[in-house]
């Protein structure tokens, strides 16, 4: 094998692939060959690096130079500058948001250097389709040690010491859950990995499966050992084709290498894993619905107890955790439960991955110790709100969560603190909103989501969410009366208390939390018939500022209803308000800021 002087890590996470990183790889390899550098520089395709808005992303080792938004056309110049002339190719560096200085390396970039990576330690570093790279980083060592030197009790004890809580949303202590399954009577038991990441705005589970699938397989095998199960299932949502492909490949490689299958590490312990692909139903993220779906039925939840730990898949005791929870297991086994418990806060241990998105400068996955403040995540890591707008609220926990307003920016992000302000950690979606986001519209969005996704089994959820949605729709159209607000609160309480599963019980949360912090905004919609964020179409109008209009006709050519006409004898345009459908196309296409919303 040639001794490479440099390695190019090319992010091939879902985000970068959709920005066209694979042609960059081809161009890179062709160019290196053309310049006779193929023996000196190696190109490795990795999983998600985390900075999804900058893709396609390249990191060149050993200096960790970080290049962003690389196109195939940039490659010849990049190779010329970096590898032949030995200097950094400045045009593709990241610019610091505050100082306008160029950031050359990954270490200098605040987005990365404030993070603590445990779950994502291998993502963006190893080639996920090559088991040897995982093994070279100590992979499957923990499984081997556990099987040959430890007992299931020891594993569960370490897990309890670590204080790890389920990362899927509810935050149930993982050690206790594993212990339940271990002690549950029954010959046959199952281990299930919930990769049905349905929470809109969360994509860490996808990134782990795409970037480091073996970590999840190894943890499931350890879980199988601890709970004396011999079969595991990973339930992945169909919307993640790349994660499915890479996980399938990883399972195949692990079987060939003897890390899955019969008599692992020459012991009597056998364990194998199969993939089950979902078919697009949010409710299948609920554990009992997920189990029904694995059995090939409609994904409808059932009342608990009995919990899956006692009666799960095909009525047998079943251990269910989500991807991120499993991704914490191997470090806990190798470095010890006490080490893990030293990170985070008193009741929320370890790190949490948040999917930072929305109105934020640096979008992507960030992993921070539990208890890191929202301000640090938004401003230090996320780089703040772009375009000179002001932070208004952060939405956590998706359709089951709530909004955190600016006054709580210094809140530590952990299970207890978020619960106190009426939100949840959930699966880790963190959507930032600025002044241009309407909170009533956000609440309506989540309620529409729950209406669509309600499985229909219990009436409070099936009928209640629809009624709540109807009220919110009335408010955003300026047709509501003040009594409707009380009715809304009453309905929310009812749905919360009487629904069968987590979906319905938490569905009113976004409404309740926006009502708690942004009641004024609801009142403005109802009383003044005004949407202060200028989002709700029924309450806004578009017009053209004639002083700014240059008469380029772009708006008129793009208007779907032909409501924009030329003012006679002038190089100006005007909108006919009576026929305007408020689609916003003119606002988007105008290059001179002449179309105004009011």
């Amino acid at each position, binding site marked *: 094998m040639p001794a490479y002087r440099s390695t190019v890590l090319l992010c091939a996470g879902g985000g970068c692939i959709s920005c066209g990183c694979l042609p960059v790889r081809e161009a890179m390899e062709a160019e290196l060959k053309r310049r006779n550098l193929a023996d000196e520089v190696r190109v490795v395709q990795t999983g998600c690096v985390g900075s999804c808005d900058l893709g396609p992303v390249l990191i060149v080792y050993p200096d960790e130079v970080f290049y962003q938004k690389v196109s195939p056309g940039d490659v010849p110049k990049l190779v010329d500058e970096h590898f032949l002339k030995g200097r950094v190719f400045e045009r593709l560096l990241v610019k610091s948001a505050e100082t306008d200085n160029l950031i050359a390396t990954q270490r200098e970039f605040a987005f990365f250097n404030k993070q603590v990576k445990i779950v994502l330690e291998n993502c963006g570093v190893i080639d996920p389709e090559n088991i040897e790279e995982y093994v070279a980083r100590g992979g499957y060592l923990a499984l081997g040690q556990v099987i040959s030197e430890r007992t299931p009790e020891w594993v569960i004890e370490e897990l309890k010491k670590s204080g790890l809580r389920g990362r899927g949303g509810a935050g149930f202590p993982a050690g206790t859950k594993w212990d339940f399954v271990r002690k549950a009577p029954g010959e046959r038991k199952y281990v299930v990995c919930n990769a049905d990441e349905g929470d809109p705005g969360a994509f860490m589970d996808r990134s782990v499966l795409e970037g480091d699938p073996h970590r999840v397989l190894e943890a499931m095998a350890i879980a199988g050992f601890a709970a004396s199960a011999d079969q595991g299932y990973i339930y992945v949502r*169909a919307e993640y084709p790349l994660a499915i492909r890479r996980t399938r490949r990883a399972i195949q490689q692990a079987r060939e290498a003897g890390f899955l299958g019969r008599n692992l590490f020459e012991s009597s312990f056998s364990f194998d894993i199969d993939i089950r692909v979902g*078919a697009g*139903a949010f409710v299948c993220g609920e554990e009992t619905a997920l189990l029904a779906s694995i059995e*090939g039925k409609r994904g409808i939840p059932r009342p608990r107890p009995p919990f899956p730990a006692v009666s799960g898949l095909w009525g047998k005791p079943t251990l269910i955790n989500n991807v991120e929870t499993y991704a914490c297991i191997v470090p806990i086994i190798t470095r010890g439960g006490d080490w893990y418990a030293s990170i985070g806060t008193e009741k929320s241990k370890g790190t949490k991955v948040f999917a930072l998105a*929305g109105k934020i400068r640096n979008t992507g996955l960030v992993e921070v110790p539990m208890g890191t403040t929202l301000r640090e995540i938004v401003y230090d890591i996320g780089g703040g709100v772009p375009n000179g707008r002001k932070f208004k609220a952060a939405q956590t926990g998706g359709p089951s969560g709530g909004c955190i307003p600016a006054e709580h920016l210094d809140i530590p992000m952990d299970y207890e603190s978020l619960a106190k302000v009426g939100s949840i950690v959930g699966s880790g979606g963190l959507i930032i909103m600025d002044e241009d986001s309407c909170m009533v519209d956000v609440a309506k969005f989540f309620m529409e989501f729950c209406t669509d996704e309600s499985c229909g089994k219990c009436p409070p959820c099936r009928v209640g969410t629809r009624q709540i949605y109807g009220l919110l729709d009335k408010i955003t159209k300026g047709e509501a009366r003040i009594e409707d607000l009380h009715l809304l609160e009453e309905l929310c309480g009812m749905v919360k208390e009487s629904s069968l599963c987590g979906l319905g019980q938490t569905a009113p949360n976004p409404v309740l939390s926006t009502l708690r912090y942004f009641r004024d905004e609801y009142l403005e919609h109802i009383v003044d018939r005004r949407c202060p964020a200028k989002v709700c179409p029924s309450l806004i109008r578009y017009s053209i500022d004639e002083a700014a209009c240059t008469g380029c006709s772009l708006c008129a050519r*793009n208007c779907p209803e032909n409501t924009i006409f030329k003012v006679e004898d002038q190089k100006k345009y005007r909108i006919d308000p009576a026929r305007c459908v408020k689609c916003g196309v003119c606002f*988007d296409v105008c290059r001179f800021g002449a179309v105004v919303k009011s």
Partner: protein
Amino acid sequence: MDTMRGDTIGADAPDVAAIAAAHRGSRAALIAILREVQAARGYLPEDALRAVARHTGRSLVDVYAVASFYHSFSLKPRGRHTVCACLGTACHVRGGQQVVEALSRELGVRAGETTPDGEFTLETANCLGACALGPVVVVDGRYFAKVNPGKVRRILSQARSGVAAPEAADGERALVTEAVCPECGRPLLDAARPIDGYPSLQVSAQCNGWRGRARISCVDGVLDGAPENAAALERVRLFCPHCSAGLNDLLRCGECGVPTVSVLAGDGALVQMCGCGEQRVRRAEVEGAGARREIAQLS
């Protein structure tokens, strides 16, 4: 349920039998079997559901219950192109809903429906996990990032003409991955002679009395800066190398979607200019008598 197309396969549905056999007729594999049948047939017609029930030993009611429960199964025929707009939270706060409304208005159908001509099926997804790129629209598996209602017409016209162009995050670069002549339908991409790492667009070109062949990069705007004197240059006319149909309509403005005026500039660049002020550059290689000299003069 629509049974028209199903009938043509025949009552035995051998394709379904083969898929079910691959799963050993397992009851638990029902979802996987239905997915594969849908992939083969495009949707789940009644005869296929009956065949699945027969081969898995489950009742038709059971099979229908599962097929109608999950969003990704379709009991109706689908269009030639699938347009899927993401409505995840991140896309929503950046205006995803307006994008769906624009798509719906342009296509004349609501989400979940297919256009009467069978061209497009419009769908929405709850989150595609590409939150950094939102609002996201996926056409036949290709991602369009940071879409707004103003870009919708262009995306649809590209899908219609078979020229799909996934875009980089900030819309600076457009990329053609499939191109056929709109007149004769023959391919224009030449994989054997790539430029910028992609198959090049191969066309006949005419400029200032010169006629020859041009190979144009599929990647937009990768050269540093447009030539300053571009406006003074002669325009280039592009033709299909197979049928000589005019192709200038193929290169459209990335901003407003109307056909651009193309000019050849120095060091092998094709500059596209639009009335809206937009200028884009593509790398180009030109062959033919006097072509090199022509370009040298222009620069």
